[in-house]
């Protein structure tokens, strides 16, 4: 990733960041992943198709930094029974669309279609996702200012989805 000079940042840098973030999730590098987030950023997974209001209607996830940290720390807990044994996940991602590219303002937005596979014991599930990233520049490095993960089949009934799609 480009350091320092915003003018040096290219669209490929933005796209590389999305790939790198997804790889962290698949490899379970959660501490590193948490460091990518802006302090006031939110991870939103809507429940309703094209849901507009994340707060006054139920979502799957609407997680601030505290909740994300709690989620990550729980995964490694001694008494986290639903993670004995642990789940594993894998994202297959399409090349992100860079819809907003404004290095001067430090604002970027990407939309990425993904297939997400999560497995544990004999179970494996496949989810189709559309993921919107809002990125900011802090000291020349990208940070996540917001992430929205929309499930194609958000209105279906699910068993446990334990990791982060």
């Amino acid at each position, binding site marked *: 990733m480009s350091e320092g000079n915003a003018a040096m940042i290219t669209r490929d840098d933005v796209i590389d960041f999305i790939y790198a973030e997804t790889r962290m999730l698949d490899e379970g590098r959660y501490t590193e992943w948490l460091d990518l987030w802006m302090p006031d950023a939110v991870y939103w*997974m809507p*429940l*309703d198709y094209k*849901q507009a*209001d994340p*707060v*006054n*209607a*139920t*979502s*799957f*996830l*609407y997680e*601030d930094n*505290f*909740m994300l*940290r*709690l*989620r990550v*720390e*729980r995964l490694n*807990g001694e*008494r*986290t*029974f*639903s*993670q004995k044994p642990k789940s594993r996940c894998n994202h297959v991602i399409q090349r992100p669309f860079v819809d907003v590219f404004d290095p001067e303002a430090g604002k970027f937005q990407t939309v990425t279609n993904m297939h997400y596979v999560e497995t544990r014991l004999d179970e494996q599930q496949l989810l189709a996702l559309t993921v919107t990233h809002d990125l900011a520049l802090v000291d020349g490095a990208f940070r996540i200012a917001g992430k929205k993960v929309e499930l194609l089949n958000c*209105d*279906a*009934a*699910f*068993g*446990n*989805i*334990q990791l982060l799609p």
Partner: protein
Amino acid sequence: MNANDIRAMIQPAQVHRDVYISDAVYQLEMRHLFTNAWIFVGHDSQTPNKGDYITTQVGDQPVIMVRHTDGEVKVLYNRCPHKGTKIAIDRAGNTGKFFRCPYHAWSFKTDGCLLAIPLKKGYEGTGLSESQNGKGMQAVGAVHNYRGFVFARLAEDGIGFDEFFGGSLSSIDNMVDRAPEGRVEISGPPLRYMHKCNWKMLVENQTDTCHPMVAHESSAGTAVKIYEQMGNPEPRPPAMQIIAPFMSPYEFFEDMGIRTWPNGHGHTGVNMSIHSKYDAIPGYFEAMVEAYGEKRAKAILDENRHNTVYFPNIMIKAPLTQLRNFIPLGADRTLVESYVYRLVGAPEQLTAMSAMYNRMINAPTSIVGHDDLEMYERAQEGLHAEGMQWVDIRRLHTGPEDFETEAVENGTTERQMRNQFHAWAKFMTMSMEGAAGVAAE
């Protein structure tokens, strides 16, 4: 399987594992228990206008709840009387003044009555108009709308609504009274969470006060730990207010108390509950005083019941305006739908708090729900062990119990589970009496 076989599965302090794992028992539950009892269908704010409908299930029966042209809510079997086609399959919609089957265009008024059949002369002299199929879509046995909550009894005859629920309706009253305008409205679609376990495990868990500090240590305990590392800053954010009380000690849950009512209903949180210590929302108490006067407003808000079980298969949280519907899909399969309602006339932050609770605790992505589901599914598999065939429900059972009268006991008793099984045997067997000794399979 006859009435005596069913009764033999329920003993005062233990139940046979077949009530959870037997497909034959599940089939009997659908034909008897879920036919004789009053079952939750939906909330009338889901169908506010004439012709509005939702599709759902009562037990394993496909039904449509629809707002008829006279303004009343009707519950009809979702089956065309002609070939059996489901009349509607979208979860919600508006059908206008009538339903029209998409297969052969038979049409029906929104109370189910037959309206028209194309090329009707083909049925002249066939006896169709005298047959059951010729009347139209069939309605369920009875429907009751209680303060917006719609229940159905499939059986034509049976126990009345008020007799079935009795004093337990005070929990719905408290939930609706919490709205300054005295009514609640649905807020968004429900979470839909599939469980590979028997529906009764979920219902029992609603008044199981000895599991939170164990099964949820990984989520609530970790939250408390992280918050301590942050120096316990005040005021606590809503997420901490919601999750920290799960780690309360056993004594707290003992002191909460449990109340049981006849016919299997009951609730935790008689004296106080894990929902008692939420921060006040600005403007809410003032709106309640305006609506009810100070004394009545205080009485409504001082009641902080935890989970109220409406036997057989829903629970509500009055202080959080939530309802969870445990829909039985098989002996080992349950669909949980978790709804949030808006208190009409109250600040929107209350809805936000309920929606937060719903996603934190009841979602397929919930770090609390994950461990609950893990326990149920392990139990569903473990119960197949042949060496031990009874499930223990004897905590604080010291002698004969009378479930026909209301009682309040220590909050860690399993009396409410015993109360549910007492009612289970009653509503399972009441329509079997004549068939005693005859195999049901």
